[in-house]
């Protein structure tokens, strides 16, 4: 409480100086404020200052003539008929686009996961069944799946671990795969070839299952890669959609 130097109640009025100068205080309030001004030099000074500021603004920011005509031409309307440059029109377009991309990516993701899961289950291979939780992490997409080698009897060359999510890699070089996994022809019996890769380069006919190209490098988990990619795409499309929607909402209140 300031009792000295300023009139009592000063703080209450300090926020009303602008409204007072603009003549925006309600009648009763204005009277009370004026009564307060009588005894409060600080508020009086503030009022004078506010008036000077108002004058400074209006004196220096007056109206300027339009530099050219803004008359609307038929050509403008034609252009504007389609989503106008940069404004709400484009915003709506961006929003729809993002929405569409997000939807497609999500549908793709879900079907991938479903296919993936079902093939895994039907494969019934406990050793290779990767936890589904992996799908949540895009970063995981390339994670080497240290699935234990399946010893289906053969030498190390025969033991192909079919990584759970491998959806038929596209290229099957093995050498430079970062994932050190035993490679080889697939064991018979491993019955979970999810999607038979189109480009089966098939060095091994034995491979009932394992996506051909993959047999070179058992590690690259194409299911995961695809899922990770789709997760990323969905997230960014959703983000873009939200941003566009916000921008649109702001600009559309015309």
């Amino acid at each position, binding site marked *: 409480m300031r009792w000295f130097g300023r009139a009592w109640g000063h703080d209450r009025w300090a926020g009303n100086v602008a409204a007072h100068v*603009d003549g925006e205080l309600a009648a009763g309030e204005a009277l009370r404020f004026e009564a307060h001004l009588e005894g409060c030099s600080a508020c009086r000074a503030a009022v004078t200052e506010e008036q000077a500021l108002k004058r400074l603004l209006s004196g220096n920011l007056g109206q300027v003539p339009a530099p050219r005509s803004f008359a609307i031409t038929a050509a403008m309307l034609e252009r*504007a008929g389609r989503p106008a440059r940069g404004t709400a029109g484009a915003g709506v377009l961006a929003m729809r686009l993002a929405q569409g991309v997000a939807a497609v990516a999500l549908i793709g993701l879900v079907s991938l996961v479903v296919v993936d899961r079902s093939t895994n289950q039907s494969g019934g291979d406990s050793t290779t069944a990767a936890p589904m939780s992996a799908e949540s992490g895009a970063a995981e997409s390339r994670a080497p799946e240290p699935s234990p080698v399946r010893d289906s009897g053969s030498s190390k060359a025969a033991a192909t671990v079919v990584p759970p999510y491998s959806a038929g890699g596209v290229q099957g070089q093995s050498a430079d795969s970062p994932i050190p996994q035993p490679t080889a022809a697939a064991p018979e019996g491993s019955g979970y070839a999810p999607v038979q890769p189109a480009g089966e380069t098939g060095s091994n006919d034995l491979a009932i299952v394992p996506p051909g190209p993959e047999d070179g490098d058992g590690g690259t988990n194409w299911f995961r890669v695809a899922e990770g990619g789709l997760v990323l795409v969905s997230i960014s499309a959703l983000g873009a959609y939200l941003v566009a929607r916000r921008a649109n909402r702001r600009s559309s209140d015309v």
Partner: protein
Amino acid sequence: MGAEVEQSDERLVSLSRNGDLAAFNRLVERYQGPVYSLCLRLLGNREAAEDASQEAFLSAYRAIPGFSGTNFRAWLLRIAANQSKDEWRRRKRKDLATSLEQIFDAFDVPVEVLDPEPGAERVTENKELAAIVQSALLVLPMDQRQAVMLVDLHDYRYEEVAAMTGASLGTVKSRVHRGRDRLRRIFAAKPELLAAYRRLDEGEVNE
């Protein structure tokens, strides 16, 4: 001159509503000054202000079939204010934003407000001063800038500004208050500025 020329806003608006482009362009002619000025003050950049003005008129033309109010000018300025806001957002950081440093640099330039006998005209003509005031304005957040401009330059009541900007009356009051407060603190770096206008108080020089 003739009654033709002096057609009322209402008449032109109702013609425009039916797609009469010529009628609408009469309105454009009538209001392009205020619209452009508002955009220029809000954006501080000619090119941006021209873009915003043009877009504002286009939006207005497209939206006019739905306009049922009586105050065309306020409606139009509202569109212009919103358009400026969009333009600001679009260009922000690229070429519009001003920093306090820039303003204080400008303060170093001698500004001649302090003529012994400041007349309204003289003061208004002062380009350096106008530039300083303009750039100080650009430091404010857009909402405050809009409120201060609409109140101080276009003489709208708080209530009208509230309707125009879709804010509550209390919000407008607080935006005006905070906006002017900020400006006052900026101008405090050059006390002579306001002092000159305080002195004008005594004369009846009011812009």
